């Protein structure tokens, strides 16, 4: 704020007063529902997950094998040239331990989340997913090898959660 300005507008409210209904206000929960189209590439990806495969798309111009697959290569700005399966193993590019849920509330059992560079795809083609079968999160290492643990075929629906989590390939 400039030292020339003496008054600073804004009437502060206390969170407690809002919570206890002491602040005149209107409450509303808009009803906003969606049916998101998976689109060309993601549909293939989801169908692949149902079959227990991770699907990638390929661009012949830049040579990338891309996960998640996309219908057009964003670097060459052209349609991709095809789809292929890659491995369901990978290495941990980065990871975190979350004690926070989507609505900012706290959770006791942390979610172990990671970006996993998928084997068979181009370098750095990471997928966001959860880590599991890890007793102590301090054991997680950058570059650790992990493998997807799938739901049994009859439980898969064509969703990112058809992979339950990625587990370490070695112990620890």
């Amino acid at each position, binding site marked *: *704020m*400039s*030292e*020339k*300005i003496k008054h*600073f*507008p*804004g*009437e*502060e*409210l*206390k*969170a407690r007063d*809002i*919570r206890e209904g002491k*602040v005149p206000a209107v*409450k*509303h929960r*808009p009803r906003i529902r*969606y049916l*998101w189209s*998976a689109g060309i590439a*993601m549909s293939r*990806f*989801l169908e692949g997950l149902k079959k227990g495969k991770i699907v990638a798309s390929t661009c012949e111009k830049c040579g990338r094998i*891309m*996960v*998640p697959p*996309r219908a057009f290569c*964003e670097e060459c700005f052209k349609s991709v040239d095809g789809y292929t399966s890659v491995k369901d193993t990978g290495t941990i*590019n*980065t*990871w*975190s*331990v*979350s*004690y*926070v*849920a*989507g*609505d*900012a509330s706290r959770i006791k059992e*942390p*979610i172990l*989340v*990671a*970006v996993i560079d998928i084997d068979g795809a181009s370098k*750095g*083609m*990471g*997928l*966001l*997913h*959860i880590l599991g079968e890890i007793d102590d*999160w301090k054991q997680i290492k*950058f570059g650790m090898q992990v493998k997807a643990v799938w739901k049994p075929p009859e439980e898969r629906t064509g*969703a*990112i*959660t058809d992979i339950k989590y990625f587990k370490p390939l070695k112990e620890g």
Partner: protein
Amino acid sequence: MFGKKRVAVIGAGMTLFRRNLKETGKELAWHASKMALDQAGLEPRDIQSVVMGTAPDAFDGVHMKGEYLADGAGAWRKPYSRVFVGGGTGVFVIDAGWWHVASGQFDTCLVVAEEKMSSCYPHPAYAFTTIFDPIYSRPLGVTLIWIFALEMHRYMHRHGIKKEEIALVSVKNKRNALDHPCAQLGANITVEDVLNSEIMCWPVQRLDISPTSDGAAALVLASEDVAKKLTDNPVWIDGTGWCIDTTFWTNRDLYYPKYVQCAAQMAYKMAGIKNPPKEIDVAEVYDPFDYKELHHMEGLLLARKGQAPKLTADGVTQRDGDLPINPSGGLLGVGNPIAAAGLMKCCEIFWQLRGEAGKRQVKGDPRTGLAQAWGDLMQYGSVVIMRS
């Protein structure tokens, strides 16, 4: 010179930044806009165009928020547009305002940014999650903190940076904010306080993060001839830059924000800056998390890759250092009403270059200042360079 006319900032205004403010979004926009106009010595009829920057409608809970805020931004029956690039909005809005005047189409432009995040109850966290892809990310239970935590961890791993080094940024900025009259979280904390604070999403802890806030800010831009008539002290916009990267953030190496570098280089080229650390006298670098200040310092080429923590530890980025960073107190100290936060940084550079920042004034008569904002899924960089 880029553009037909040189553009100056001639007035600035802002409201308090607080977790909960009583004013509606319109009222907040009006307070900031009116203050900027009064400071510039202008009437509403002198404003020829208005640009509003405001982030997701989902925070205020009013769809088409740009339209909703328009009359509070003095845009009644005027050429008006809203820009929105996530957190990058606060600096991008001044870049967009610059186009209005530099093109020669308008002599004046009022640039406003507003956010009322408290409407999203009890916490805007859920609104943040809707940024993520609904099919391959949201079903995992994603929350926005994840993406920061993953990036912070990668940055630390790549350069071997420790949490203690990063915590120094939070300590510096919150202390700087004690001198900012609008600040939400000015405080005297220590590195230990940061390291002992609640683990949210390792390695992110509570005191590493800026708050959610309500607030608004505004600037008046004018062409050279108009500016010179109104003030002896115009602050020139000499560089603008902006850049976006792909939404496939898991396909990028998060240790370095390439898109910030692209935006910065665009602005440096325009401003004729060849050696940023030497030529920039003061910088407001986007700090929604403490590690972000370091990350962005490197992206802005103000520090070599991995070296920003050392500059911080050596005191270079303090107000009395060689390259003061976030003398305002940044988002960590002043608050983070998304779009208004970035514009607050622009206001700070304006006041610093005019010598009007009071207790926050950096020494040595700063002449060249930079403000930068970041947004979206680790995607957007927007930069503005000002000179007095």
